């Protein structure tokens, strides 16, 4: 059976061009770039090209840094723990302001520094699922706020936060601003010259690059202690032998992501909207968050009378990979914090299914998905006592 992959907010297929570009660095060009001999130095031009592509991709300045690392989780941890170390531990400032809907890597890193004495303020989202800049303005003050950390786009809902405005508020007040841009790269324009963020993290595997490699943007003049101490890689800010193949792959993946942004916002959006319209045509289906406020690839839908885990089970049997925001399916059984923060009614919290497309999603796949979804909703509603 041909499978349809609609879980691109979890991870994406590696673009064949990216895979091809990476291959030599697993084979003949395996040198350690820190070596002085030819094996080491011959990879430098490729690394330079990759960094050029990363810098261009987010419009970073020559004097800014993009530290290569393992993933956005690492970048986010580096920022939160680093700011705690430099500013909160030393008593210069006391608070981190974040939101109730962050990815666990930000949420749990904040809880960790909270246990070390930091005060953490977790802002709710408004009825649209967005962080309101006015609310942020009320909760920050240069005397106490060390860092504001707000995601660029939400992984569950696809809702895009007004990062430029939020970052400006912080810049005006002399407060550091960090954004987890893992769901933004390749789905919308990420421009650090336009949005005055101080730190920004991303992961290659969310935009058709390889897993296990990411980047942390640090604006000129901002400093952070390293999370990993060791050699002089990344000017000592992130030690560990450079993942050359990963860097090369991520560089090209970034270039392709930006190049395909137009396709993403037109064609991927069109396919997404088609799927969304087909879903909404089914009785008792609602979608979380207004369409124009979301990344072009994401749908978080609730289907009345259809429990989330049972739904993705059925879709999986029909060859469609989706994920659920329902509490029942996660291994922890904890209620979904995004739903709680958005005050989504508890019924919907158990019926959530997330479908996320990519530029590799085809028209035929969407047709298939619509068929499978219709069949599954019918079957599960027949099983459910709640359905009409």
């Amino acid at each position, binding site marked *: 059976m041909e499978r349809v992959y609609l879980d691109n907010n979890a991870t994406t297929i590696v673009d064949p061009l990216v895979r091809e570009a990476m291959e030599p660095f697993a084979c003949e060009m395996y040198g350690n770039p820190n070596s002085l001999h030819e094996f080491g130095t011959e990879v430098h031009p490729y690394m330079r090209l990759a960094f050029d592509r990363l810098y261009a991709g987010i419009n970073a300045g020559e004097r800014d840094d993009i530290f290569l690392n393992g993933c956005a989780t690492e970048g986010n941890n580096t920022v939160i723990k680093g700011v705690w170390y430099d500013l909160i531990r030393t008593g210069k400032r006391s608070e981190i302001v974040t939101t109730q809907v962050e990815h666990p890597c930000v949420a749990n890193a904040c809880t960790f520094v909270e246990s070390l004495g930091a005060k953490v303020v977790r802002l709710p989202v408004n009825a649209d699922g967005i962080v309101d800049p006015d609310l942020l303005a009320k909760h920050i003050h240069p005397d106490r706020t060390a860092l504001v950390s707000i995601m660029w786009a939400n992984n569950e809902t696809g809702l895009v936060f007004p990062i430029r405005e939020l970052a400006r508020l912080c810049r005006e007040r002399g407060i550091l601003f960090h954004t987890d841009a893992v769901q933004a790269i390749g789905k919308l324009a990420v421009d650090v010259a336009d949005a005055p963020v101080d730190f920004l993290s991303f992961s290659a595997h969310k935009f058709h690059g390889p897993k296990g490699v990411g980047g942390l943007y640090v604006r000129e003049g901002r400093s952070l202690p390293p999370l990993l101490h060791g050699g002089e890689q990344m000017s000592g800010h992130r030690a560990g032998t450079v993942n050359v193949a990963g860097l090369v792959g991520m560089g090209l993946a970034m270039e392709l992501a930006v190049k395909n942004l137009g396709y993403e916002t037109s064609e991927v959006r069109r396919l997404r909207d088609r799927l969304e319209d087909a879903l909404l045509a089914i009785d008792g289906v609602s979608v979380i968050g207004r369409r124009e406020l979301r990344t072009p690839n994401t749908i978080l839908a609730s289907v009345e009378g259809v429990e*989330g885990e049972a739904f993705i089970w059925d879709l999986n049997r029909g060859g469609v990979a989706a994920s659920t925001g329902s509490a*029942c*399916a996660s291994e922890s*059984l904890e209620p979904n914090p995004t739903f709680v923060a958005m005050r989504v009614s508890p019924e919907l919290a158990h019926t959530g299914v997330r479908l996320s497309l990519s530029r590799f999603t085809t028209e035929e796949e969407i047709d298939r998905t619509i068929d499978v979804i219709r069949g599954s909703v019918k079957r599960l509603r027949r099983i459910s*006592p709640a359905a009409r």
Partner: protein
Amino acid sequence: MAKNDLIGGTLWETYSRKVNDRMTNPRHLGEITEERAAELGGRLVVADWGAEVCGDAIRAWWVVEAKTNRILDATFKTFGCGTAIASSDMMCELCIGRTVDEALKITNIDVEKSLRDAADTAAIPPQKMHCSVMAYDVIRKAASLYKGVAMDSLEEEEIVCQCARVSLRTIKDVIRINDLTTVEDITRYTKAGAFCKSCIRPGGHESRTHYLVDILRDTRAEMDRERAKAVASKPKSFTEMSLIQRHRAVEQALDEKVRPSLLKDGGNLEVVDMKEADGRTEVHISYQGACRGCASAATGTLALIEEALQKELDPGIRVVPV
């Protein structure tokens, strides 16, 4: 943490083939009409349990023969995950052919066991155990409707952990008898709290009437009060004491009168059990250190220990080395 825990997303992989199969093709799905019940020659019972808001809801249909109280047919409809659907289906199967009273003895653990492929391999992962509880609850609901009694009257004991079906009394007993001080200990001894973890403390998957943290705190406080009282009213004779009080008295007497001299010679002893036989208290001990294998352990030393306890506590005490 261990090697087996390092790969995530294994939830569905741990479902048994039977769970998979019944999720996909439930055997007892659907509703039973009044007409169908009349055809079968029984009374129709329709029971609802759970709510969509909580993530799980079930409706069960029973046809019960009035003369024998036997369940002639059972079907269900369920809003829930794969485990909930498969458990509902198996619950129906286990009910069919049983009397209502027999059905009341079916627990979620029986349902889970019936869904196993191999007797010693769980059908579902621990965190999904609570999804099978609903299938048990709806039996009680249906039985109460059939009998025309309140549902509470059918529950013999107050259950704290629904997943492992551990009662309040069992948990209190195990804390007292084993002198437990942590929730992890309670889970180790009883399995309460090992599955969905809702009963450990407020704020879990579901809210509960009783939480292990509270039971532990309250029972420990009760034990402390009793201990204080026991100390205050020392003159109470050994034979009047409860087994726990007797155990404490024996330990105290051993600490004061026996252990110091044993320790001096590099030995020690442990009380491993206490029993009542013919109105006498038997204290079973196990020697440790140098006492173990010492020639006098079965003769002179033993006599000294027994004498000390008889003198301190009660002439009826016998000491038995094990």
